[in-house]
């Protein structure tokens, strides 16, 4: 197995043993677990030179014997930027979590989820095969679900987890459809080959493919109208918010857009859709950020704003916008990661995230104060932070927009102004100001929590002062998005006064103004929140989701009541009636010829048939349950004997064993049933109905068998298995070789179903017991 594959898959292996390791090592487990992401990060850094020199690193692994599905990985500029962010952030987050969640009962499980997420996210950005990308993509949704719902005892956490999973999961399914279509149109499922085929756009399916891929990307990156799940996801512990819901996972959608843009950026829908949705999201996020009083929700809305900017930049396309997106991405991950960690530290120490209540924390939490200030400078887009360069670049790209330029610039100035104001409020309101006299003393967070935000915020400033370190990697990233991108050198300030700088100045001016009117504006929004929610917000996307979910529940309840009433006889009637009718109708439509041929039958065949008929008849006329079951057992055993006479010993043994176990299980069930008397027999009309269904069953099986016999036997498959059984499967028993080797994946599915069925039966029996006990207690 090659090294890139190990880079991705090792995270899953460590996740498997993480809970066990944590149980053994307690306090020090985080240091050990953080070594893996650190090693991955350093290992990937080793490819830096190779990537800059234009080499692409790849590895390919077949994991299904199918042409389309390879576990193939590919490392270029774009995936290097993402994978470095993912792996190094994982180191900080694991160590941060060891302080933040210290003493939690299920911390080991938390580490496992986190590592599983890291591996999946690395898989998303490194995968070359689009189906593999889809699988990792859904695994990130799944691990995000587990992480948001980590505090599963709170209903709000469970609901937020479900919402995030449903929104991103259904987007993911749409994306799968788009990817399969893309793979079929392109004739390849490898991104590296697909992206060399611009002729895909000429296909009649191009529109559908693009829309489906958009659905995947925009739900994952929480763009309007799918933005509502992200703020709710703040129910997760803060390290998760910092990692998944700001620095990495929500950028998976951005990654996908960036990845497909070499081909699809030329599509007529690309620019209008992405630019429009980006602008709407940016504005919505700005206003909602002003409304929030919860520190984490406020940060979540500012994340939305950043994601909207990235969507917008990718929508604009071209050399400038591609570079700008890369720098913006790096800048945002650095400052937002730092700010989330600081918010977590405040929550941890001051036990509150309410910005109305928090103030004057600077003296008690000096390290967090410094980190927050530096990060806020970057978020506000002030020099000398990297955020400033990113904002300048984004304004430069906006100017290249062919239409709607003025509206786009106006919206972005407003949105960035709001971001500025929010950054200012964050520092001024929370850290400066008076320390309330009645508050218990607050301390600085432990070093595992205060060090990393300081490091990330410091890096934002450092890279702002020396942006030349990002020249080459930014260029390589941009080249993956826009192959004709040109190398340009990054500067903190432009050589001469230009339009973007002017726009920046306007933004800052507007930001200061907005910061001054923050209090009345915020109060107004908060006061109006109720009426707004009852009014126009009532028709917002979050409501659509709620309605959709309610209607789905109502629909499934209705179909459950109608088709599966819970009365086992009714259920069986539905299932049998439906399947026999279908069989008979399709038999009638196929109109096959039937052949009845009694030649070659031996005397014991007749004896066996007679035994079966006698058993069936006895079962029908039985007056006690035990007689009925014994009679059915006779039928089953006769069937087993038939298998023996036709040389199928495996089947025969299985049938005998099943009959035996069935008698034991039914006997155990019988004890629990109320006694049975002939008075309990159904009235005649019902018996006639049952007889009709049973007759249809017998008829459909019999006719199908006769119809099948009339076709010439195709032995191609069985000949193949017989030939290959020994050389491939190393066994002479073809049945078993098929079960465990040739069709092993089917068997694996079957034993999984078996296990789930057993869990279901267990739950049913145990739940029933629990309920009875409870009722008894209540009766007392």
């Amino acid at each position, binding site marked *: *197995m090659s090294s890139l594959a190990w880079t991705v898959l090792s995270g899953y292996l460590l996740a498997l043993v993480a809970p066990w390791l944590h149980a053994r090592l307690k306090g020090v487990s985080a240091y050990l677990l953080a070594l893996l992401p650190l090693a991955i990060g350093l290992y990937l850094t080793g490819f830096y030179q190779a990537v800059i020199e234009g080499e692409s690193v790849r590895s390919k*692994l*077949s*994991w*299904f*014997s199918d042409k389309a599905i390879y576990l193939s990985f590919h490392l270029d500029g774009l995936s290097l930027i993402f994978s470095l962010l993912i792996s190094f952030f994982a180191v900080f987050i694991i160590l941060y979590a060891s302080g933040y969640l210290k003493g939690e009962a299920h911390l080991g499980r938390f580490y496992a989820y986190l590592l599983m997420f890291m591996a999946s996210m690395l898989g998303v950005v490194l995968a070359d095969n689009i189906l593999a990308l889809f699988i990792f993509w859904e695994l990130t949704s799944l691990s995000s679900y587990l992480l948001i719902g980590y505090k599963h005892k709170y209903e709000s956490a469970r609901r937020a987890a479900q919402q995030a999973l449903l929104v991103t999961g259904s987007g993911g399914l749409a994306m799968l459809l788009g990817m399969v279509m893309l793979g079929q149109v392109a004739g390849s499922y490898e991104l590296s080959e697909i992206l060399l085929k611009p002729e895909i756009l000429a296909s009649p399916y191009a529109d559908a493919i693009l829309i489906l891929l958009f659905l995947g990307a925009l739900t994952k990156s929480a763009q309007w109208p799918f933005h509502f799940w992200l703020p709710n996801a703040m129910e997760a512990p803060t390290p998760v918010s910092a990692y998944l819901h700001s620095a990495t996972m929500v950028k998976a959608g951005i990654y996908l857009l960036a990845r497909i843009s070499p081909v699809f950026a030329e599509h007529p829908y690309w620019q209008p859709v992405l630019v429009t949705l980006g602008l709407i999201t940016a504005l919505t996020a700005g206003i909602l950020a002003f409304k929030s009083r919860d520190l984490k929700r406020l940060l979540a809305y500012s994340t939305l704003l950043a994601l909207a900017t990235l969507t917008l930049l990718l929508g604009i396309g071209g050399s400038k916008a591609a570079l700008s997106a890369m720098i913006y991405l790096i800048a945002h991950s650095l400052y937002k990661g730092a700010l989330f960690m600081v918010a977590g530290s405040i929550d941890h120490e001051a036990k509150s995230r309410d910005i109305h209540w928090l103030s004057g924390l600077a003296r008690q939490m000096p390290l967090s104060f410094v980190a927050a200030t530096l990060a806020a400078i970057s978020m506000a887009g002030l020099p000398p932070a990297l955020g400033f360069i990113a904002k300048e670049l984004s304004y430069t790209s906006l100017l290249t927009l062919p239409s709607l330029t003025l509206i786009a610039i106006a919206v972005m100035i407003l949105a960035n102004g709001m971001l500025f104001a929010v950054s200012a409020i964050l520092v001024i309101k929370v850290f400066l100001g008076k320390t309330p006299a009645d508050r218990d003393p607050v301390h600085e967070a432990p070093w595992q929590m205060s060090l990393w935000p300081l490091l990330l915020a410091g890096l934002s400033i450092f890279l702002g002062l020396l942006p030349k370190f990002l020249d080459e990697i930014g260029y390589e990233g941009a080249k993956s998005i826009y192959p004709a991108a040109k190398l340009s050198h990054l500067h903190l300030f432009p050589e001469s006064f230009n339009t973007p700088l002017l726009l920046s100045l306007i933004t800052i001016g507007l930001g200061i103004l907005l910061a001054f009117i923050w209090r009345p504006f915020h109060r107004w929004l908060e006061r109006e929140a109720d009426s707004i929610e009852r009014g126009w917000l009532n028709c917002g996307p979050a409501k659509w989701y709620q309605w959709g979910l309610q209607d789905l529940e109502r629909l499934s309840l209705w179909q459950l009541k109608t088709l599966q009433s819970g009365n086992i006889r009714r259920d069986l009637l539905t299932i049998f009636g439906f399947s026999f009718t279908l069989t008979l109708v399709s038999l009638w439509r196929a109109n096959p010829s039937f052949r009845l041929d009694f030649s070659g039958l031996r005397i014991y065949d007749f004896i066996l048939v007679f035994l079966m008929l006698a058993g069936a008849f006895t079962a029908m006329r039985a007056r006690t349950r035990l007689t009925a079951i014994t009679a059915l057992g006779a039928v089953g055993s006769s069937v087993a004997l038939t298998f023996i006479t036709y040389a199928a*010993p*495996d089947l025969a*043994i*299985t049938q005998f*064993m*099943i009959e*035996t*176990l069935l008698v*034991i*299980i039914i006997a*155990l*069930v019988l*004890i*629990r049933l109320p006694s049975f008397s002939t008075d309990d027999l159904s009235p005649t009309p019902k018996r006639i109905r049952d007889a009709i269904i049973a007759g249809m069953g017998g008829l459909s099986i019999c006719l199908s068998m006769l119809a099948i016999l009339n076709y010439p036997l195709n032995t191609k498959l069985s000949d193949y298995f017989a030939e290959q059984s020994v050389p*491939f*499967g*190393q*066994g*002479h*028993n073809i*049945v*078993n*070789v098929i*079960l*465990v*080797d040739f069709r*092993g*994946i089917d*068997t*694996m599915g079957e*034993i*999984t179903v*078996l*296990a789930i*069925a*057993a*869990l279901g*039966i*267990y739950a049913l*029996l*145990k739940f029933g*017991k629990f309920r009875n006990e409870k009722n008894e207690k209540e009766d007392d």
Partner: protein
Amino acid sequence: MLQSVILQTATRLLMALLLLLSIWLFIRGHNQPGGGFIGGLVGASASALYTIAYGVSEAKRALRIQPKAMIGLGLSSAVLSGLIALFSGHPFLTGEWLKLHIFGELVKLGTPMLFDLGVYLVVVGVVLMVIFALEEENV
């Protein structure tokens, strides 16, 4: 629970035979009729007999490993047998074989055997889970 001395005595003898039969069916399965599924069913019925004769708690004690754990172990070993192929660069679930000569006899060990063991464990676990749950109800 039936407290029958005859049944209990007979069970002791039958258990050994049934378990041997179960293991024998499992091992010969790759070349002759048998295999994990059938072996598992025989093993499960042996334990079911024991449960009827001695009761659930006694059967659980004799079993040492709980049905739930058995199912988990079985599924894991089936998955593991598939993963082994990945490490040698073959697709998931490719059979990998090791041919050993022990005392001049050719012994073939392969991942499908591990897979079959998984099937065996799942089958025994599932049947016993249901039987234990039902039997416990009746107490």
